[in-house]
């Protein structure tokens, strides 16, 4: 019962947060809502007994990714935020809903008909972190290392890409200087 209440509560919160993220016109609101949504997601992981995953979710997403986005937003001039053009809402919502329903049909219908829940109940007792560690460093060792290298590469790439002309900041320049800079780029 407690589980059900928790599920519905967090489900509502997550959906609400993400909804705000995609609809708000303020970038800052969106960022905040996204961060909140991420944290609420981790709640599901805890409910599902994936404690380690939940922790990682909070650390990586809310800690690292959100921080990155926050820094990124500082780079961009939020005062000059782009106006969202009104696309055809019906098409967008319709397509999304249709896609979602189809996914449900494809994935959920067989699950329900096979009554997976009753056949394979969740196993309790074993420490999740321990379990994760066991699997991660035996069966998934190579992918894990590859992922590590990938992260490293991404880090270097991020630094290299963003790090060029670190001294140049568009936020600090006036419009004329920006124009000049643009022309230079185009010419080069």
């Amino acid at each position: 019962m407690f589980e059900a209440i928790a599920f519905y509560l967090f489900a509502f919160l997550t959906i609400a947060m993400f909804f705000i993220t995609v609809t708000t016109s303020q970038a800052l609101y969106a960022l905040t809502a996204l961060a909140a949504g991420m944290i609420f997601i981790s709640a599901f992981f805890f409910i599902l007994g994936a404690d380690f995953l939940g922790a990682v979710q909070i650390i990586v997403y809310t800690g690292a990714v959100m921080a990155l986005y926050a820094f990124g937003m500082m780079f961009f001039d939020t005062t000059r935020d782009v106006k969202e053009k009104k696309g055809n809402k019906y098409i967008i919502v319709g397509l999304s809903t249709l896609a979602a329903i189809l996914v449900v049909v494809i994935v959920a219908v067989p699950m329900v008909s096979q009554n997976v829940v009753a056949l394979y109940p969740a196993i309790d007792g074993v420490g999740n972190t321990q379990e994760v560690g066991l699997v991660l460093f035996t069966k998934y060792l190579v992918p894990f290392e590859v992922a590590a290298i990938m992260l490293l590469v991404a880090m270097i790439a991020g630094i290299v890409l963003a790090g060029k002309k670190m001294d140049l900041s568009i936020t600090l320049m006036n419009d004329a200087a920006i124009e000049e800079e643009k022309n230079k780029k185009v010419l080069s």
Partner: protein
Amino acid sequence: METYLYIALFAPLVGSLFSALFTATPKKLFTGIVGSLLIFTSLVSSTILLMYILKGGEPVHVTMMTWMATGDLYIPFGFVVDQISVTMMMVVTLVSTVVHIYSIGYMDHDKGFNRFFAWLSAFVFSMMILVMSDNYAGLFIGWEGVGLCSWGLIGFWYHKESATWAASEAFIMNRIADLGMLIGLFLVYWNTGTLQYDGAFAAFHTLDISTLTWIGIFLFIGAMGKSAQFPLHTWLADAMEGPTPVSALIHAATMVTAGVYLVIRSHELYSLIPHVGLFIASLGAFVALFAASMALVNRDMKRIIAYSTLSQLGYMFVAAGLGAYWVALFHLMAHAFFKAALFLGAGNVMHAMDDELDPFKMGGLRKKMKWTWIMMGLASLALSGIFPFAGFFSKDAILEAAFVGNHTALHVMEHHYIIYAVLLFTAGLTAFYSFRLVALIFHGEERFKLFGFHPHEAAKIMLLAIAPLVILAIIAGAFQTTFFEMVQEALNAVEYHVHSQIVVWIMTIGTQVFAISMIIFAYVKYNNSRVSVPDGTSRLENSFIYKLLFNQYYIPHFYAEYIVKPYREISEIFWTKVDLKIVDATVDGIAGIIYGTGEKTRQMQSGNLSTMLTWMVAGLVGLLSLAVVFGLTARYSDEILLFLSALGV
């Protein structure tokens, strides 16, 4: 004898190739001399062969080499000299020798002297192949070969539009007939398994009548083209655009008689199908009258002679169609002599009159050109069938054949009085227009002075060349019995006798009187001072019949207006409308649709990430729907089949 055969056949080819070497160079007299000598060699060889056959020798039959052999088909280059072909060989080589020698004089000033002899000798070679071949395919080679040479010779003065037009017309009309001939050949091959004369003739007896009728009809279509029978006759008159020696050789003596030769050669076929023969005879009689009527009013000297040729070909077809093959052959021979003489005489006149062709602008040339006058007069008498000239014997035999109508194969007596009457009437017309021409050219006032001509007698060599022909035109009738005895064997010939002697005398004398009276009538009408150049004002010229005849029954007009013009227009429509607008446009349209689809869908790739993402989602939805549909179908396939079967699908 085989050596003589090869000499007779290939001497003209050698002459042609020799002259052809010099086509691009200025006139060389020796090409003419060498050409004439080689043709003369051919003549001598033919004469030797004739003597051999006359003495009762077996027909000479040689097979030179294989031409085509595939499947069951076997066609060799085979040649045969028998009674029929030796007659033709004599006619061809004799007339062509004369014409070659004559041409040395006639073409004296022409730039294309060497080319002329190349074509002329090539023509003789083709003609020799035509008459000497022992199979239908070989005959067809010669058939097309003479067509080609006639094209080259009619269009000899290729800078003249009318000449090239006439050449093309002759070639194409002959091609129409050649198609018929080709189909006839196919029929012969598929029904008898061979194209050799002897094999095919032997097999004809086993075929049913309808097949034979078709073979006979298609072969005769071929003959109609070459011999210019109605409705394929218009090319012959237009062919007079060629040099006159060409008209004499090709369009009077030899090529146009090839059709008659074909019917005579296939007599074993035609004697099995007398109904086709009757059709041939009827058409021949019609053409005889039809052509003679056009000759009555024409104002072009060469065309008048051409129409008379046409008319005489009609006579030959009457004889051949009625089964009197030897008579047809005999008339062919006699006609070759006097008609060639007439044409060459006309050539003399043209030479004298700077290529003027309208006899109304001549008159009184008798004094200036005595020898030409005599020769043309004699040839015209022969043409009119006056005793004792050659024309009398041959034409009389045709009339008798029509009157008695003894069909050799069936041994049935049939009287064809209508044909007889038509021919008799035509004989009178022939006499009239022949002497109308002679009178207009050589008698009466010297109208040529009005037009500033200075006529002169032709060169000696030309006159000498004509002489043998005229002599033969006079005496050929004497050979009738010899000829009959010779060809009797090959053609199952019978003499035609009207049983009652009185009838014979009445007929003969009647015909003579009729012809002579027509000659006198022609003289009375045209040998006087009142004859003047027609200017289209006289009552006669405005009468309907005159106009009809003068415009050749409007047939050339009809062809030009309703066949040539529509053909050109349809071709144009086919190209501009059908080919470009429909066929090609369809292809381009399909390509255009594909291209246009790309052009349209290119808009999707606006480069805008947002749009692209929307399309991605749309694609995702599409694929997911497919997955659902196929998943459900696979899962419930049994149920669906059950449901469908319940529906009765």
